């Protein structure tokens, strides 16, 4: 029976993990270490604006332990979706940190990077030949979506990792990747059942998150065989339960029974969970069906403008009692003030979103009113404009106008907004939108994901 044992040290590279428990995991014997570095939860700016999800210090701290640990056992270390988005800039950002650590620690190894920003011409050719397909709630796209995007990444499956390892890589840094693929790659390539390998990977990609309770995420060790996989948290006080593992199939996925991955779909209808010890759970019965056509998901971010914001608090009962009318009069006054400054242009080179915290900022609903006993609300005004200069100008006009806007009950100059910081107008820089929820057909699973090897 083939058995493999691997570690996911944490849920997100840079999120941290306990060094002592990591050392104990290493001492227990491992075949490889893998860690996810990606998330779309940070929004489109990570990809569009070349912004890492975690701090450099956080990522470097984790990578130092992982590199030293993996090299001490001479086992592969795989990092997926480098730098948050897995874009080329973010991948290079992580590579530079790895090379810096190698220099500081005197480590030598073969490093592979796998790029995931495909040639636009290739994507356009696929789009033109009808080989790009929308997923749920996908935005409309055309040729310009491909040419205008700041960055487009494709989400690789297991095959590019396997190619990099076969070419001799000790450490693999990948661009955008299916989170699960980086954990499934080695088990699948060693012939372990794909259903078990993918299902285990889907849980392992969050590190030690699938536990009953935790304060800080730590690691998880997976032992996978031909018949089952076992999950054991690295943190000695953390426990996996049948429900904590089962419920992880719900997290961030729309369908807990079928999960689509590059090249196939996990089917989890017949999964069985068994509490092996008070902290270890065994899983059986996970299935996997290869897809007829190999597809990978596309993610893209397009610049939509430059942003600025104002946040103020309002407590005056004379405003709160008739808040909606007051705010509507304020919106009209802000446009007038902005047009006076930058000139009236049609269409306006800016748009403004008002959010009323205490009313319906988080769950917007038509007709929402302030509760009659509301003692204060937060008013957030965000401006998106064609340039940072216009965004800042309009936000400044909004801050000043709303501050002194007429309150019908009072006669004289009022100051309506409590600002909690100075300056009270904040530039938010460039803003981006996600522009794809699509998959592209591939001729080969590795064609969009070139592997580059270098000796460090």
């Amino acid at each position, binding site marked *: 029976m083939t058995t493999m044992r691997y570690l996911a040290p944490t849920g997100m590279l840079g999120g941290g993990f306990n060094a002592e428990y990591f050392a104990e995991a290493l001492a227990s014997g491992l075949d490889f270490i893998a860690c996810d570095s990606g998330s*779309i*939860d*940070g*929004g489109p700016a990570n990809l569009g604006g070349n912004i890492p999800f975690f701090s450099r210090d956080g990522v470097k701290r984790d990578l130092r332990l992982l590199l030293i640990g993996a090299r001490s056992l001479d086992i592969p270390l795989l990092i997926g979706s480098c730098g948050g988005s897995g874009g080329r800039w973010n991948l290079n950002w992580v590579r530079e940190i790895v090379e810096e650590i190698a220099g500081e620690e005197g480590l030598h190894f073969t490093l592979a990077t796998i790029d995931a920003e495909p040639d636009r011409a290739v994507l356009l050719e696929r789009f033109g030949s009808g080989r790009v397909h929308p997923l749920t709630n996908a935005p409309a796209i055309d040729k310009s979506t491909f040419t205008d995007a700041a960055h487009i990444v494709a989400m690789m499956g297991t095959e590019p990792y396997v190619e990099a390892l076969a070419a001799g890589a000790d450490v693999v840094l990948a661009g955008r990747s299916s989170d699960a693929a980086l954990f499934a790659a080695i088990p699948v390539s060693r012939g372990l059942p794909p259903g078990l390998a993918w299902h285990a990977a889907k849980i392992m990609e969050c590190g030690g998150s699938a536990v009953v309770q935790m304060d800080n995420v730590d690691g998880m060790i997976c032992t996978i065989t031909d018949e089952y996989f076992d999950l054991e948290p690295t943190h000695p006080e953390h426990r996996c339960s*049948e429900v904590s593992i089962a419920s992880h*199939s*719900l997290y961030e996925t*729309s369908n807990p029974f079928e999960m689509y991955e590059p090249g196939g779909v996990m089917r989890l209808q017949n999964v069985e969970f068994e509490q092996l010890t008070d902290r270890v759970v065994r899983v059986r019965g996970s299935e996997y069906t290869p897809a007829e056509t190999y597809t990978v998901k596309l993610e893209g971010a397009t610049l939509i403008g430059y942003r600025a914001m104002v946040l103020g608090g309002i407590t005056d009962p004379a405003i709160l009692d008739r808040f909606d009318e007051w705010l509507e009069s304020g919106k009209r006054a802000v446009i007038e003030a902005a047009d006076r400054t930058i000139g009236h242009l049609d269409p306006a080179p800016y748009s403004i979103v008002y959010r009323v915290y205490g009313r319906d900022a988080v*769950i917007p609903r038509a007709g929402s009113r302030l509760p009659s006993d509301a003692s204060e609300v937060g008013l957030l005004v965000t401006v998106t404009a064609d340039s940072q200069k216009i965004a800042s100008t309009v936000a400044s006009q909004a801050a000043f106008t709303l501050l002194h806007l007429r309150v019908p009950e009072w006669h004289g100059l009022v100051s309506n907004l409590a600002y909690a910081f100075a300056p009270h107008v904040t530039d938010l820089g460039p803003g981006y939108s*996600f522009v794809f929820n699509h998959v592209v057909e591939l001729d080969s699973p590795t064609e969009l994901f070139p592997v580059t090897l270098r000796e460090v």
Partner: protein
Amino acid sequence: MVALRELAQLIRSKNAGMFELTVDVMFPDAAAFDFVVDSGVLDRELAARLFGVDAADVQIFLYRPAYAIKFSFPRPVACGDPADSDLFGGQQFAGLVNLDIPGDFVAGSRVGAH
């Protein structure tokens, strides 16, 4: 009548990708799970009303291994767009927390609701 928060051990929402949201209601045991499922209260129309989407776009999954009811539906605004006010989608479940489930629930058994 009993509030959903009295029966569930976790009610949460989260992005499922950048264009979908998913809401999980998880129960500690089969009794609470069955009580709520059998009540028929958590249906597409409820989700449509609470989450501001079309009922036809709501998917509901009953996931017994975790005693969970799952709603998945399109995000009204994509994650991180200027009009989006919940980047991680983590605070969209509030309408469920104090929802009344008809019937009398006694832990470990079911009374009423049939």
